[in-house]
């Protein structure tokens, strides 16, 4: 068996792949948080709950309407995004004038409310969600067996990250978003409907969380606690990457997923805490985060 530094190559590559898949979820989720934080200046504590909501919408669509994975991949994010738009319009937008603590508390309460609702009906156990038949099976890569669905997750998440980056950095709408992040009043004085832009941005961030949720449904089970399980790590990712940078959020998500995978082969006992150790070190050395602007 081939070894690198006393580690079997097969195990190494296998765990790196697992890390890449986890990293795909971290990247997509921290990207949504960064998009929302960039313009609205609020930390969306409901992000994990919206991720869970995306998975549940997919599950319910299948269970009650017979709508399968592929349509759900479009419909679930739309529903979660719409839910986000309604939340922003009716509640969150009323808090902008107040201290940011209020919107933080609001999204935190919202997370508890959404999670509590689903716990009431489904307990904390998971519901299975089958891999779509078109992505069943897998490919033998020689060093390991790669389930097709997991390969799809890596591709889909990466495409969404790149698409979002393109939308923000290279389009007209993105230039409104970037400008409004710098000086919302001036952008509105130029005739851009900034309140609508805020609604759209929150909805878009929520839709990203919903998309990640439905993407995750066949891998993890669909459960009310799936959001709070992953969101703690995602917040650590955000701290490591630094708030507000789109590219930083994506890169850090993948980086920490891979770091986790690597730790599983080198020192498995530490794999659950490695993200937090990295976070602590980054906070000591570079408090603004790897990609954040130093204050």
């Amino acid at each position, binding site marked *: 068996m081939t070894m690198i530094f006393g580690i079997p190559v097969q195990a190494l590559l296998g765990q790196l792949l697992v890390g890449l898949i986890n990293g795909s979820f971290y990247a997509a989720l921290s990207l949504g948080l960064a998009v929302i934080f960039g313009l609205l200046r609020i930390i969306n504590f409901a992000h994990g709950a919206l991720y869970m909501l995306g998975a549940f919408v997919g599950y319910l669509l299948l269970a009650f309407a017979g709508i399968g994975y592929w349509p759900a991949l479009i419909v679930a994010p739309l529903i979660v995004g719409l839910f986000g738009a309604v939340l922003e319009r009716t509640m969150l937008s009323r808090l902008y004038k107040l201290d940011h603590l209020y919107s933080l508390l609001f999204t935190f309460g919202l997370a508890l409310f959404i999670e509590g609702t689903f716990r009431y009906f489904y307990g904390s156990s998971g519901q299975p969600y089958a891999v779509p038949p078109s992505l069943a099976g897998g490919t033998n890569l020689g060093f390991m067996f790669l389930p097709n669905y997991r390969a799809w997750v890596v591709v889909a998440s990466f495409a969404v990250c790149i698409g979002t980056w393109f939308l923000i950095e290279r389009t007209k709408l993105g230039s409104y978003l970037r*400008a409004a992040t710098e000086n919302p009043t*001036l952008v509105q*004085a*130029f005739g851009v409907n900034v309140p609508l832009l805020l609604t759209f941005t929150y909805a878009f961030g929520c839709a990203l969380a919903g998309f990640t949720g439905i993407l995750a449904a066949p891998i993890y089970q669909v459960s009310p606690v799936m959001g709070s399980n992953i969101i703690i790590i995602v917040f650590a990712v955000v701290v490591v990457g630094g708030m507000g940078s789109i590219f930083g959020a994506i890169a850090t998500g993948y980086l920490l997923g891979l770091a986790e995978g690597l730790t599983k082969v080198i020192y498995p006992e530490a794999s659950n805490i490695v993200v937090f150790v990295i976070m602590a070190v980054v906070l000591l050395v570079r408090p603004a985060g790897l990609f954040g602007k130093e204050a």
Partner: protein
Amino acid sequence: MHSSQPLLSVRGLNAWYGESHALHGVDLDIWPGETVTLLGRNGVGKTTTLRAIMGIIRKRTGSVAFDGQDVLKLALHRTAHAGIGFVPEERGIFATLTVEENLMLPPAVDRGGMSVEEIYALFPNLLERRSSPGTKLSGGEQQMLAIARILRTGVKLILLDEPTEGLAPVIVQRIGEMLLALKQRGLTVLLVEQNFRFAAKIADRFYVMDHGQVTDSFTTAQLPDRIQSLNRALGV
């Protein structure tokens, strides 16, 4: 002398920053095609007047009629669509946008704005540096960009706040030529300027502000007789 209605008519405009009362009943009129300059010492409320007309300051009373429309009732983003463009004192060039993105940012609100080609012909520097970040431009170039992006939109009235502040004399002259060119195109401009010698070359009329009110007004022809009293009033 004035045939039609004023394009902008401000009456008894009051404005507040929180509890602090900054404008105490400003009255002014601007007729179509005029360039009118607002003079006054630091802190008398010139910028505040522009912000209150634009709607950036929301705590206002009085009336601002523009093109027959009561602008005070409009949401901030509707004011531009009514036909008023704003060039802020601090220029407001966006660092995360390229020069060209900065130029294209304000939505066109009417036909009759300058085309991008015309703008680049007028400001070759902007063309040359169109893909660099907006704030990498020199102060003078940033000021030109701040004016150019409003020219694209086709607004009828431009509120222009101290465009020559802190700029070298050659650039000031260049901006003066630009403002003359705009005037020839029939644009109406409300210009805030401390330097009335500069303003005399382009303005048709002057208003003088003090303590949040308009205290004096005169035409450019009357300026020479006023120089001494103005120097005193403006503390130059």
